[in-house]
């Protein structure tokens, strides 16, 4: 659905040229929810703007739904943009228009007749759950409701692709979750391809099928969300993964745990996908003569299964403990013996 080939974007600034996007190759499948994560300045905003021609690559090409967005201009580009919806961090609604009029705006641009616009707006208001708020002005809505208007507006012309530019970054955690659920719902119901950029791993975990990690204009790591969660390779990816798996205080806590339990072994178990539901702990207690104590843990749901970490403390006869650890290794669970140094 989307193909980015050797895309490069160089901005000329007072302090010399800055490479915002550096030789990126990427293909995104139809119906996929693809996430790009990175800190601010990583180039993700520039990259997502290339997908609807708000930025043109200095080199390389960008193809969306069969159109080479990076080459076309004028009315052809405007036509292509009507098939690519976009939502924004700050919603970017027109305050001078009501909810209905905001949603109708892209239909006006596309030249739809009044009767058709009204019908479509009604459908969209229902789809995003804004019944009864049609005649309100944006200033009368909450952040979450504003983003719903943004989504309805982006979907008005039945786009093939939806671009989300930090769409939940200005929202509180609860509202973020409801907007993310709406996006998943739209993805499933309409088969819409969604590309989103964010700096929150929570967003990636919750709805993305695949993720690309960006740093200094390059994609440093990419793959199915669960794989990246299980085996983050780059330091930056590890830090992002920690955002959701380990609360900030966990390093501290682990140190305390290791200090407090000099006997036995502390093992970090990483569950991915199906194994998260398997009774691994029960098995260990049944098979080996060890005592097992759960110290800390967190299981999160992702689009392709559960992901989580569990810190357990194994005590007992040293050889039994070793056997238990060996057993864990043989399971579909990654285990890592934590030592304090």
């Amino acid at each position: 659905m989307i193909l980015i080939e050797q895309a490069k974007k160089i901005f000329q600034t007072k302090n010399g040229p800055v490479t915002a996007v550096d030789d990126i190759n990427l293909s995104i499948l139809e119906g996929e929810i693809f996430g790009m994560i990175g800190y601010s300045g990583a180039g993700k905003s520039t990259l997502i703007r290339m997908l609807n021609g708000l930025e043109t690559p200095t080199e390389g090409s960008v193809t969306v739904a069969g159109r080479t967005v990076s080459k076309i201009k004028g009315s052809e580009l405007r036509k292509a943009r009507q098939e690519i919806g976009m939502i924004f961090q700050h919603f970017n609604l027109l305050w001078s228009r009501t909810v209905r009029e905001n949603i109708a705006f892209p239909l006006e641009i596309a030249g739809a007749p009044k009767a058709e616009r009204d019908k479509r707006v009604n459908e969209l208001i229902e789809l995003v759950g804004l019944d009864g708020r049609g005649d309100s002005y944006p200033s009368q809505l909450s952040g979450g409701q504003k983003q719903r208007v943004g989504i309805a507006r982006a979907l008005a012309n039945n786009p093939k692709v939806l671009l989300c530019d930090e769409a939940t970054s200005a929202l509180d955690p609860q509202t973020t979750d409801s907007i993310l659920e709406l996006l998943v719902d739209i993805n499933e119901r309409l088969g819409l391809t969604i590309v989103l950029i964010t700096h929150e791993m929570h967003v990636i975990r919750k709805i993305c099928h695949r993720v690309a990690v960006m740093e200094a204009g390059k994609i440093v790591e990419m793959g199915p969300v669960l794989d990246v969660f299980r085996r983050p390779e780059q330091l930056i990816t590890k830090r992002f993964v920690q955002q959701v798996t380990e609360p900030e205080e966990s390093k501290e806590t682990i140190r305390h745990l290791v200090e407090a339990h000099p006997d036995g072994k502390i093992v970090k178990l990483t569950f991915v996908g199906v194994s998260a539901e398997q009774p691994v702990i029960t098995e260990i207690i049944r098979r080996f003569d060890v005592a097992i104590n759960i110290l800390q843990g967190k299981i999160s749901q992702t689009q392709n299964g559960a992901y989580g970490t569990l810190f357990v403390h194994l005590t007992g006869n040293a050889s039994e403990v070793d056997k238990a650890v060996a057993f864990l290794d043989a399971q579909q669970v990654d285990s890592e013996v934590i030592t304090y140094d």
Partner: protein
Amino acid sequence: MIEQWFPNVDWEKMWEATLQTLYMTSISVVITFVLGLLLGLLLFLTSKGQLWENKAVYGITAVIVNVFRSIPFIILIVLLIPFTKAIIGTIIGENAALPALIIGAAPFYARMVEIALREIDKGVIEAARAMGASTSTIIRKVLIPESLPALVSGLTVTAIALVGYTAMAGVIGAGGLGNLAFLDGFQRSRNDVTLMATIVILIIVFIIQFIGDTFTRKLDKR
């Protein structure tokens, strides 16, 4: 009682002068609005980072606007006498005041239009572009509606300045309340006439301010 306080006021003349002032003000406000809006849009669109970014066009327009905005109005009228004569055919009367009024006020309003447009959230313009809107659609459906309260309040300020300009134009023969106050009041030492003309001008200004404020409030849904 009024007759006692204003013994020298010729009410018929006062009414005629009021109508002349209103005529000059309203015609010049309408044309200033159109011209100022166009110039303001040009300034905004050609400025840095905007849709028609163009240093040369922006620079030239900005210089013209600044020059005409800086010339004191009374001098501008004199400077424009040959121009006025060429297009109106005379330099006496209400119509003769119009070119100077418009040329004096339009650049002033253009700057206010530019400021009003700058206040629009850049994200909204980007959103419209992302939807596939053409520049003319963005002007008609985003830039003007989103800045309308500021455009109206700017026009209110300009209209009030124009009332003042008509009085100045009146002194050198354009008619209206300024002319009456100067010729019948000042030069013939009839202070009551000057005072009455001032009161009428104040009433006109208050009415313009009231209308402008009402519209601005009604239009602003932020």
